[in-house]
């Protein structure tokens, strides 16, 4: 390994970490406000802004970022305007604005490449990201924008929380809800600007959504969610960067996105309490418990039919009366002390009685059939 390669990996990994942290932090608010799609619009809308920035100042990170921010802002305003002045539903408004800005961006891109000569070829890297082309100056700009976004979040934390949860109430309290909503949109655009070079306009929205969705599965309060989403973003960024360096030539940005979405998928499946697997297991456990109670009911019905609370019921009779195999349930109920095995001479077959605990469990249900 050469020193140059180390330097590149360092810059790329650091950049990916900054991208992941700001995407996760700021994406949390977008996901909670159900505005993930607006993130997609802002990301795609950045493309014409990048092209105009390039036309004005060439390959220079600050004008590119400013262009992307302005174009994102214009797109956000367009979405608002379409929503207010037409009867289009929000998803249609978002889709239209995204397409128009992205199409404009691609046209501009082809124009810039036609007139801009060899240097302008680099601009198409912003479609899918090109981490390897990142310079130290780019990293510094990303860190400044990401840090500024974090400061804004910290400064306006409680206003942001109130607006995310209950905007009308926040307005009744006197909080400047419109201003905070504008700030949240600006913050989303900042997160996108941070990630454009690494991940590109097409995939950037995943870095807003995936870490936030993953984090929500594990925690139940806002600040841990934001912190964990940022951490998931950093992990995705750094592992994506390392993976792409290890397997030479694989695109960094898409790898980062794949790691982030894998984390989200794992969280959706496995998180305790909310995860799919956890809930399946809980449902199975509950179904087992209910089945057990029904076996107890059958035992009691047999006992009542014989006028003897301690009537020993033969296993085969229980199964016949219950209509299902009961051997496993009886063993489970025995381990809980709700039924007890007894012998009933001269018969050799296993018999069962309800224990006082088993009767108490049934009575606890209010079941007095």
């Amino acid at each position: 390994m050469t020193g140059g390669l180390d330097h590149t990996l360092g810059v790329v990994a650091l950049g990916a970490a900054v991208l992941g942290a700001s995407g996760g932090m700021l994406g949390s608010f977008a996901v909670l406000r159900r505005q993930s799609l607006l993130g997609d619009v802002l990301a795609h809308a950045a493309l014409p802004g990048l092209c105009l920035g390039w036309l004005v100042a060439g390959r220079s990170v600050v004008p590119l970022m400013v262009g992307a921010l302005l174009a994102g802002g214009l797109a956000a305003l367009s979405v608002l305007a379409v929503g207010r002045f037409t009867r289009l539903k929000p998803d249609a408004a978002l889709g239209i604005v995204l397409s128009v800005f992205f199409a404009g961006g691609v046209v501009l891109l082809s124009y810039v490449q036609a007139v801009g000569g060899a240097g302008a070829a680099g601009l198409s890297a912003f479609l899918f990201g090109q981490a390897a082309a990142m310079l130290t100056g780019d990293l510094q700009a990303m860190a400044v924008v990401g840090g500024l976004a974090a400061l804004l979040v910290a400064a306006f934390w409680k206003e942001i929380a109130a607006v995310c949860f209950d905007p009308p109430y926040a307005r009744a309290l006197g909080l400047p809800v419109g201003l905070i909503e504008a700030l949240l949109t600006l913050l989303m655009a900042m997160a996108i600007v941070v990630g454009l070079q690494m991940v590109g306009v097409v995939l950037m929205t995943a870095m807003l959504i995936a870490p936030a969705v993953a984090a929500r599965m594990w925690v139940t309060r806002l600040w841990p969610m934001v912190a964990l989403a940022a951490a998931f973003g950093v992990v995705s960024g750094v592992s994506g960067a390392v993976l792409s360096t290890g397997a030479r030539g694989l695109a960094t940005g898409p790898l980062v996105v794949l790691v982030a979405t894998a984390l989200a998928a794992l969280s959706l499946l496995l998180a305790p309490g909310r995860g799919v697997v956890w809930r399946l297991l809980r449902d199975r456990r509950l179904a087992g418990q209910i089945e057990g109670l029904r076996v107890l009911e059958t035992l009691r019905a047999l006992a009542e039919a014989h006028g003897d609370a301690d009537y020993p019921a033969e296993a085969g009779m229980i199964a016949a009366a219950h209509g299902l195999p009961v051997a496993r349930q009886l063993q489970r109920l025995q381990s809980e002390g709700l039924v007890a095995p007894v012998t009933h001479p001269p018969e050799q077959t296993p018999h069962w009685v309800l224990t006082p605990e088993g009767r108490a469990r049934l009575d606890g249900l209010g079941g007095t059939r």
Partner: protein
Amino acid sequence: MIQAGLHEPQFALHVEDLTVAYRHAPVLWDIDLDVPPGVMCAVVGPNGAGKSTLLKAALGLVPPVAGHVRVFGLPYAKARQRVGYVPQRSTVDWDFPATALDVVLMGLYGRLGWFRRPGRAERAQAMAALEAVAMADFAARPISDLSGGQQQRVFIARALVQEAELYILDEPMAGVDAVTEAAIVALLKGLRDAGRTVIVVHHDLQTVQKYFDWLVMLNVRVIAQGPVSEVYTPENLRRAFGGRVALVGGQG
């Protein structure tokens, strides 16, 4: 139109000539309304009568086409410290990552001012509000784990912590069980007995006489307003609900 001094300060809520329209269809038409302080007032009317809109207009959440609203003689923006609002429970996403205490603390965000975080004193106030709605044991619970009635009580605690003089509640008894409803009514009556004013959008005509002492009947226009004993009449009910309801209740 902006008056420097107080206008009709003898009323907790004063509404004059208020008209609100969505897409050119008037939702509230020429509303004149006065609620004196210290009453527990129900706002009743059929679906689409503009009950929620009236509350939102009083809170400055929807812009009026015409007319004005005064709270204790002041425009809402100048009186908001004296008003506690309980929106309909269904207007927020209860899967939001927050505990019951987090939500109640939000009631103090308006008073805290920029850059200040809720501290020990604020948490104590929020706990006291949760205590008042018998939800102190649930302070650390995620709101997504609460039942509908518990969520409603958290919402009421969030308004209580504001220590307001006028409480405005939008259907607080919707979708809660009888026990919770009784607890909410007792709490609101306690506020009224302590001299606060309580205005409730209410959907159950049968309990109007039992719960409230002041009544506003609304159907885009104000049909009737005043003490329940004077306003709750078959004639007014017919005018508000279009003859589809018989007079119900009548318990003492």
